[in-house]
Structure formats: C-alpha cells, structure tokens
C-alpha cells in the first residue's frame, strides 16, 4: 500500500499575508488540485466528488495514511447535491444515534476552515424549527430532550422568543398556521458549500489523492462476491475497495455491483432571491409549511422545500415548487412579498424508508456504500467521510454508523428519524 505523500510538497498556505503578497506580485496562485493521468490501479476508488466522496478520500489520506486513492466523478467537483443544497448545518435530530452523528459532523465543520486551510465560512446563526400544531410542539420537545441528553444545545421556545430572533416573523394568532413555538438550536448555521467541496478536494489532493473529473463509472467489476474495480468512461481501474458516495444516482451505481437499495430518487428544489440588506439572521424551518429559509452574507434569501412528490431524475425544476414556497414563506413573513426570486434549481435526493442514510458494507465484499442521504447529506459530509474512511482503512464498521447499515431493512431495524425529518433542514 502506498503511503500518503504530499503530491507537490507542502501545499501553498492561504492567509491574509499570502493574499497580500499575491496582490503585489500578481503571481498566479498554485492550482487548487492537480490534473493527472488516471492510473490503472488504486488502493481504493471513491465514486462521487461531492462532499462525502472528497471527505472520505481526505480522511483516508489524513487519518489513515492511505493516499493512493482515486475520486472519480462524471461531472465536476461539487457539481451534484454538494453544490446544490442550501448549506444548512445542524445536529438537532430525533434519535440519539442521529444526534451523535450530526453533532460530530457539526464539530468537524466548526474547525474545518483551519483543518483544510480554506475558509468554508461556517456561520453559526441559530436554527429555528417552527411548530404550528400541538403535535409538532411535542415533536420539537422530543428532539430538544434527546438533543440535551446527548449534549447538544436545543430548546423549545415560545412565539415571543421567536419574534425576538426573527422580527419579520408573523407570530400573531391570526394566521392560518399560528406559530405555537419552535425548536431553537443555537449551534445551527450556514456554510459556503462550494468552499467545503473545494477545500476537501484541495486538501485531499495535497495528500496524494487523485481527483478525476469528467470520469463516469460505467461498471463495477466483481469476482466471486468481491469487488475488483470499476470501469469508467476513461478506462478500467482495479481496486480492492470501491466506495459509492453518489447522491441521486446511488441506486444506479449500486446496481452495477448487483446491490439493490431501498432508495427512491426525488428532486429537491431550491431557490434564491435578489439580495436585500440583512434582516434574517437565523435559519428558519417550518416542517408543517414545508419550507426552510436563510439569508446569506450576500443578502440573498435561500429557500428550500420538501422533495418533489414523485420519483424523478429531472433537475429542471418546477413552477409549483416556487409557488408553494412563496406561499409558505409569506405565511411566515408576509412583509417580504416584494422580494423577488432570482433563480431556482434542483438536485437529486435519495430517500430511504426511514429517512436515514445507508452507510457501510454491502453483500459484495469491498463494495461500500455511503448513500441514501435524502435531504440531509451535506451537513453529514465530514462525519460520514471520517467514518467511511475508518471503515475502508480498518475493515471494521465504526460504532457511529453501525445503526445505519444496509441490512437493517431486511432485518427490520429501521431508524426512527421518520417523524422528524420530513422537512428537516
């Protein structure tokens, strides 16, 4: 096994000082990652250059010294769900295993800029999940209680406190869906998703990982129940371990290895408005109204909703999505009716029956999956990458992801996030 090595010596440091120097000299910056010839063999192949694939490769190299790894992607770095999500970070899940896992991820995110020497702009904004019914208040309290027992900051707050955090919110009782309270999760926030992808890619590259964009996996080779490599649009690669880190196409990639997944692919749409001066600090989610919204540092509102109601691989977006979204946003904040939607887009989400991911081994030896991330994949990237890297390197499933194995469906051990994750961003 090749040990991880610095591909081109120590990577160029990013800092205010280096920025200043470059400003004076006008030298070109070093390339963020190399473009190299694809080799015929690696210690592991990761399919998908999104945050999960890149983080897996990065932690393989950084934590386990395994740098002889190829990340292959049919598109470009961060071009799938990792570049299309609404970049919300939180850990206020419902089940203890979920809370622990996402808490780990949030903590990795909090330090990620320094870890990767790339400013990923994590901004702790506070995260509000609104409750409009007594049932929903109960669920919020359930989440708050589990969160606190797991050491995660969460609290159920009342309409007055909601109003204090979000002055634009209509917290009167006159609305069709009055706000009865909210789950307030101070550590929640937003991040620059592209920066995370690029930061991981750059850091992994500097440790020897090769990133091959524009390289589509067309087949997965197996021999007597063991994976032996992949075939790609640019030739075959042999590898004893293949990790499926795709989103949207997870079923199709798994099928190449003969593995059937309990996944349905749904489009998830998002939209952004024209910028206005900052007025919404917190991240606001309403499960009942199927909407979540935050305001970026650039002043744009970024919105998302629940997934489209039918299976589809279409990323064209729909009008009804923006209509529903606007209806519900204005239900919450009627005074922003004059703000305008600038752009809408869609990504693909792999939804599992229990709204929880599938991580770990499959019936095919060496073929691992890190899939089924539904609408909550981006926020899990670092923790999933870290755990998948450990699994690849040690061959043992880490405790943190044991509950999320593929076999749970055949063995009826579903994870209980179903109640909390309907629109859980």
């Amino acid at each position, binding site marked *: 096994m090749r040990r991880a090595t610095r591909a081109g010596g120590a990577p160029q440091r990013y800092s205010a000082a280096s920025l200043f120097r470059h400003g004076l000299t006008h030298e070109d910056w070093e390339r963020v990652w190399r473009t190299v010839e694809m080799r015929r063999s690696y210690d592991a192949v990761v399919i998908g250059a999104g945050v999960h694939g890149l983080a897996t490769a990065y932690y393989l190299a950084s934590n386990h010294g395994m740098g002889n790894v190829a990340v292959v992607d049919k598109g*470009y770095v961060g071009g799938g769900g990792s570049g299309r999500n609404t970049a919300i970070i939180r850990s206020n899940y419902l089940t203890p295993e979920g809370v622990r896992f996402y808490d780990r991820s949030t903590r990795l995110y909090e330090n990620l800029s320094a870890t990767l020497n790339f*400013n990923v702009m994590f901004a702790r904004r506070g995260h509000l999940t609104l409750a409009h019914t007594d049932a929903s208040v109960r669920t919020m309290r359930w989440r*708050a209680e589990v969160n606190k*027992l797991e050491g995660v900051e969460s609290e159920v707050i009342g309409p007055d406190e909601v109003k204090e955090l979000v002055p634009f919110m209509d917290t009167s009782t006159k609305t*069709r869906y009055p706000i009865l309270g909210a789950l307030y999760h101070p550590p929640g926030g937003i991040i620059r998703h592209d920066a995370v992808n690029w930061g991981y890619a750059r850091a992994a590259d500097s440790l020897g990982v090769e990133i091959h964009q524009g390289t589509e996996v067309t087949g997965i080779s197996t021999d007597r129940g063991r994976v032996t490599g992949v075939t790609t649009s640019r030739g075959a690669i042999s590898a004893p371990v293949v990790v499926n880190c795709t989103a949207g196409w997870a079923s199709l990639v798994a099928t190449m290895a003969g593995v059937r997944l309990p996944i349905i692919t749904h489009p998830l749409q998002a939209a952004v408005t*024209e910028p206005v001066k900052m007025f919404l600090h917190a991240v606001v989610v309403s499960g009942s109204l199927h909407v979540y919204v935050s305001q970026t540092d650039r002043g744009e509102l970024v919105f998302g909703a629940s997934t489209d109601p039918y299976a589809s691989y279409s990323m064209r977006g729909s009008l009804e999505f923006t209509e529903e979204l606007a209806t519900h946003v204005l239900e919450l904040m009627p005074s922003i009716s004059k703000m305008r*939607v600038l752009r809408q887009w869609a990504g693909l989400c792999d939804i599992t029956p229990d709204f929880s991911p599938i991580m770990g081994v499959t019936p095919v030896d060496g073929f691992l999956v890190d899939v089924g991330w539904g609408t909550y994949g981006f926020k899990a990237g670092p923790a999933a990458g870290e755990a998948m890297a450990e699994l690849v390197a040690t061959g043992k499933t880490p405790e943190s992801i044991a509950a999320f194995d593929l076999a749970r469906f055949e063995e009826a051990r579903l994870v209980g996030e179903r109640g909390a994750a309907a629109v859980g961003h």
Partner: protein
Amino acid sequence: MSTAKRLLSGRPTKMRITSRPGEVIDRSKPVRFTWNGREKSAFEGDTIISALAASGERVFSRSFKYHRPRGILTATFHDPGCSVQVGDEPNVRGSHRLVTAGMKVTAQNVWPSLKLDVASANRAAGRFIGAGFYYKTFIKPERLWPTYEKVLQRFAPGGRVSADSPHGSYDKRYAHPDVVVAGGGPAGMAAALGAAEAGARVMLVEEEHSLGGHLRYGSETELAALAELRREVEASGAIEVLVNSAVTGRYDGNWIAILQRNLPHVTERLVKARAKVVVAAPGLIERPYVFEGNDLPGVMLSTAARRLLNLWAVAPGTRAVVLSANEEGDATAADLSDAGVHVAQVVDARRGEQVVRARGAGSLSEVELGDGSKVSCDLLVTAVGWTAPTLLLNVAGDRPVYDERAARFVPGDGLPANVLATGGIVGDGPTAALVEHGRATGRAAAERALARDGTSVTIPSLSPAPHPALYRSRTHGIVDFSEDISSKDLVSAAREGYDSVELLKRYTTATMGPAQGKLETINTVAVLAEATGRSIAETGTTVWRPPHVPVSLGALAGRVLEPVRYSPMQPWHEAHRATPIVAGQWIRPEHYGDPAREVRTVREHVGLIDVTPLGKLDLRGPDVPKLLNFLYVNKWLKLDIGSVRYGLMCGEDGVVLDDGVTGHLGEDHYLMSTTSSGADAVAHWIENWLQTTFPDWQVYMTPMTTAYASINVAGPKSRELMSRVVSDVDLSPEAFAYMQVRRGTICSVPGCVMWRIGFTGELSYELHVPAGYGLYVWESLLAAGEDLSAGVFGLEAQRIMRLEKGHLIVSQDTDGLTQGYGVGLDGLIKLDKEDFAGKQELEWQLERQGYNHLVALLPDDASVVPPEASQIVTGDRSIVGRVTSSRLSPSLGRSICLALVAPQLAETGKSVTVHLPDGTDVRAKVSEELAQFDPGGERLRA
C-alpha cells in the same frame, strides 16, 4: 442650439431633446417624483432612469464589491447599475419601471450617500480582493470569522425590506392558449399573427411596455413597419396581448409561466399557461465589451443610447465616441448626430480599430484607442455583438451551439415539437425577413397546436449574419457588472484550476447576480476560453435557469388559498368564545374557558363535544366484512347488525396506522369511523386495496365525514338526556347496550345514527346527525339538558378524560415505528386470521420481542406533570422511553401519563426516572392498568 452647445453653455443639466418620431413620453403629462429626497420631474412614459438621465443624473448606484459608480449600461430591465429602491420595494429595475406621480426613489447600495462613498476604499484594495479572496483569508482565528462576516454583510448589495410592509394584492390565472409567443418584437408579432390566421388562440407576451422590440427605437421605415404590425395585431380577434409581462419559464408539459405586471388591480399576476406550442421570440441582447474602464458612467451599449434618444428623447451624452462593429453601431452614430450629440469619433471595429481604455473621475472623460490616441468625450457607445437569450430553449432540452461565424450561441437542434423559435434568436435579417420568418413559424405553431398536418408550412431560412468576434480588448475590464467580476479575476481563477465554466462561475460568482448571465455569460466563456487556450465552442456555456426575470414572492404565492373546514356547530362555538385549535384543515374548539370544569361536567352530569371531524366512511356491498377483516388486526366476519366494534389498523410494515369503531348498520351496510387526522389517509388506503389488489370484492366506499354532524353525549346523565330527545329507539341498557348502534330520530331529525361507545369512559352516545341539522340538534340537546346541568366540552377535556381512561391516540402515543404489539391492544391482534394488512410483520414482531410498551406512569409527586416528550432515562442517562401523554387529572387530583418504554421497564410497579425539560429528574411508577379512572369500565357500560 444643439444639445451639446446648450449643455456646454452651463445651463441647468437638461438632457431632454426635442421630439423624436418614436418617443413614448407624453410631454403634455408631467409627473413629479423624488430621487434621494430631491424633487424631480418627468413625463408620463418615462422610466425612472430615463427621467433621471433627462435631468442630468449619470450615477445611479455603486458596484457590489469595489463600490465604483455605475450609470446606464443597457437602458433595459436588465441594466445592472440601475436598480433602485422605490418606497418599500427593493431592487426595482429603474430602466424599466415607469415613473408615477409621487414615487419615492432612492439609490441602493450606497453608504452613506451616492456621492460620498466610503466603501469605495475597497477599490484601492481591489488588487488584493480578487475573486475567491474570501476563501483564502479570515481562516484564523476562526472565532473572528463572525466579526468579519458582519463587516461583509454591511456591504451586501440590494435594497431594504421592512417588517411592516403590507402583503399587497396578488393574483394568478390559468390559461390554455394554443400558442404562446414569448416576445413581441417584429418576429414575435408576426408569429402571433401567423398562428391566429391559422386558427389558433394566441397569447403574445412582451416584456416592454409596448409591442415592437427594436423597431420601437429604429428608423422611420422600421417605425412604419411597426405601426402596420400593431394595427394587424389589434385587428385580430384571436391574440391576447400581455405587455410589461414576461415568460419566466417553461416547465414539464409546456407549462408556461408568465409574469404579468401591467394590471391595475393587482401588483403582479402569475399566469400559468398550458400551451400546446410555445414560440420563443426573445430577440437578442446586446453584449458589453471588456476593456479597462468599461463600467464608467458614460460607457453604454449602442441599444442603450438609441433607446434613450428615440424612446425618451434623452441625450445620453454631449460628446460621443462610437465603437461600432455592426449596423446598430452605425445607426447609433447617425442617431446621435441627428439628435445633436457631437460624435467625436467612430471607431470601426470591422477595420480593426480598437478601444483600449476609458478614463474619468466618477464618469467618463476620455477614451484611449488602439493606436494610442486619446479622445475626450462623455459618452462611449459600444456595438460589438449580440447574445441570444436561450433560456426557453434550454429548459426545453435544447443545448445552444456556438456559431463561430456569427460570434454568438445559436439554438441547437434539440427542440421538442412543441417549442419553436423565431426572430433574432434564430438569425438576422431586415424587418421583412424577420416578419416573414415569424409569420411562417406562427403558422407552423398553429398547425402543431391544432394537430393538423402542417406540411404546407415552409419556414424560410433565417441565419445569423457574420459578425467579428469581439469580447475583450487588450486591457482587462468588468465582465459581470452586477457581481463586479473582472476579466482578470476570471483568468486568475481559471489558472488556479477553476477551469470549467461551472467551477469558474461558482468560484467567482460571475453570472450569478441579478442579471443572471444575460449580459455576461458569453464574455465569461470567452475569457475562460482565452485563459485555457480552448475555443469557445469547446468551453461551452452555462445552463440558463428560470425564471427569465425575477418574480416577486407575492406573485408566486398569488391569492391566499388555504382551505379551512368548519363543523355545522361552528357558529355556536364562535358565539361561545371557544378557543380555536388548528387541526389540519379543521378549526375546532380546544376548550370554552376551563377544561377542568368541562371534565367535571362530563364526569358528574352530561357534556356534549363536537366530534364532526371524525372520519366516517359509508361501506356498502356483500364483501365489506372481508374488507374489514383485512384492514383491521381483529376479526370482523361476524358482527351482528346493530353492533359496533373497535378495530386497530396497521400498515404492511406492522406500524399502527389508525383506529376507530365500525358499526354494522344494515344488510351489506357499515359505517366506519376513523381518527380525525387519519380520515383521508384511511379512505385512500381502502381505495388502494379495493382498486389495486381486490378488484373483485364488491364494496362501495363513500366518504361521509361531513355529511354528519357528530356529537358525543357523555356523562352519567346522558341516557336521561337522550331519552328526552329520542322517541323511536329504546334506550334502556338492555335494549341499547354498550358497543351497539341504532338508527333513529333525534330532536325530530330523522336518519340519525347513534352508537354507544365511550372515549371519555362515561356512559355515552355518539350521535351522527345529518349535518344541516347539526346546529339545531346541538342547541336542542343543550336546551333539553339544562336542568341536568348539561354543558359542552372541548378537545382538551376529551384528551384529559381519555388519558384518565388510558385510551391511546394514534400518532401521539405511537410513532412512525410503533408496531401493533405493545400498545396495550395485544389481545386484539388475531394472527390466526388467514391474512390482514401487516400480519407478517406482526408475527415477526412477536417472535423478535424487544419492542417498546405503552404503559401508564404515575409520578411519585402527584403534582408534577412531566411535559409530553419528557425522556425516561437510566442512571447513565441513556434513553429508555418517553412520556407520550400527560395531564393533571381533575377526576383523580393527580398527574397521570402514558409512556412508551423499553420492555424491561414495562412491569407493574417498576420505578423509572423521568428527565424533565427543565433538567431535573422525577421518579414515577408503572401502573398496573392503562386506565386510572374506572379501570373496570363500569361507568361505560352503565
């Protein structure tokens, strides 16, 4: 006196010139408005910017990053430097929005003022804050990032919203035109005419305030052609014209979104048109040229100059240099001269002449040419080529291809049959050629829309004219004016490795601003191609995403349509100040002031509750028993007429789905009740089985939820009360026993169904009354029970009483994984039935064991009510259950709970630790029975 002389003579800055043949202003109607608090005058027909330009203003905003002054670039909707705040409306497109009397216009993105702009210090730092600089700095220490972030947020572009702005009035409309023509220039107008002539219903959509496209600011011949086209469109009875409206996108099934902005009674309206065929005729967008100083106020596109001159009679400057690579440029030079603007020099790019840089402090004063010569001027007009706005084609699946000869992207060959294109997006030509192409395309569209043969329609060819490929001069300048991205930024990012269009776009944010790539996409691609040594064709272009123009949230939301459902007794509830609770679409009384008193009324006397939202399904047919036997976990093949039975439904995964009672009313006739929230789901569930799996079963299911007003009469005196209002049913305990159903007359209302069941644990009758009589019966019952101290109770009292009785509420005391065993109803599940929904999983659940159990918990301190969702924990704080329901029981004078707990805790007398939300722990004991009140059920069966 020429404009130039007049202006140079030092008179007030009046740039308005004498009347132009195509001008759209009405000089007889002056309008006054304010700009940054100062009063300004305009004419009706002026846009905000044309009026300000007429008054001599040149700077309308500051750029996003470097806070450079910005003036007019395009004089169209997409003018990047001309967004302004109008009253409480941010980001108004000043080059498009018409001035109205009293309008309060202010500049955005300036602090503290347009003229004195401290942030422009950023300009000096420009060399250090190129694209992507954020990613490379503010990394350490991380705790300082929020502080940096706050600073950055101050410089966020855009206007302001205010928390007290009214929602405003918006609207939507569905339409079903045969043909939608997107774009009302000459080709679009002709297409509409062609389609209408062929018999189609047409919707013609134009972004500007009137039809005509570029003809509006064209030559006299063009104006004459326009007049003729307008006359024809008006004369046609089959064309609906929407001006100041834009096709914002095309979605699956030719679902066309149109934003209509020209209506008197609503701010904006979203029209959703299911078009049979759509014709894209958006025309062309002129693209800016990249060179140093290209964003100085005074540097503008040739179309901008012509629009200012010919539509609003505004001189765009006094002394002009014209960089021309095409006829439009030449025509602009001619128009400028004609209007009295001195054209100092025409730089002919077709002869290799070049503009290298523009200079000026605050606005343009000098242009440097390719030969090094310098020309002083206050206006530089560029005419270097065109961009085809292909959004509609893109979203229909077409991928535009780069036409090297014409130096622009043109439609590919991937259009579906229900999308056609015409006009400038397809090719160039004189007006007659555009009209001819448009008319034929319109006819072809109609043929397709009306599903006719269509072979008779020949569409003449229209191809893009050759054009020099001019993107960037030998200096660097701004590429994305909204995002303040220079060509230098792009080159540097490409060299860093962000060298595909998508990566470059994301890294630099080029094309991501308010103009959404309409002005800057091609230049971005060209600069990237240059930086990577690839051709433009190889580099490709980004995908245009909807909407074509920004759409207000108000228009997208439209009229507020949120269905609400009311019971027939709602007027009474309102009159008696019931506290409402929203339960799905239903608005129900939670209580009438004092739930505890309402409980006592029921426990001691008799109370009425409105339970109309309970799902009620009428089931008829010989196979109903089979259906019930399949849906419920218990047995249903033998149920006497006149009896009701409780049943539990599970999904195929064994998870508890719903519960309720079903009564056997008559031969092959049953009435099923479901939970209120589960009514629709159960109806679908039943239809699903009947239609997809058991099509041979003869069952007709009819939802009857609101055909009946449902009233539960509960309490020890309920039989007494019932006896006063029911004459045709023997109410004696022997004749009408617990779990039986009778049909009869209540308060003289025939056709009522009554069954003896009891969620509250008291002797009670659930009455289903023909809904129109609901209010009458409710009031009559109360009147009849006055001396029995009859009262009403709401949902809260009912919840308390059901908890005293230990009855579960599906989805409160169960969750998304709770299977049938363990919820206190194990005896109900009959695994010896051949088949029922969920049977397999329930069998395996039983084999597997280890599932949670629903138990009643009694806190040791009877005054403590653990909030619902309080967790039950072990000594090491691991979670072993949770409180699902809890209340202070008025009947027992103590707190009571239901809880789902791990199996090892589900033993009578077991003491558990309940962790309260306030962080404290309390102890509670598992009770023997789920019911704490009358566990034997004697009151119920009285």
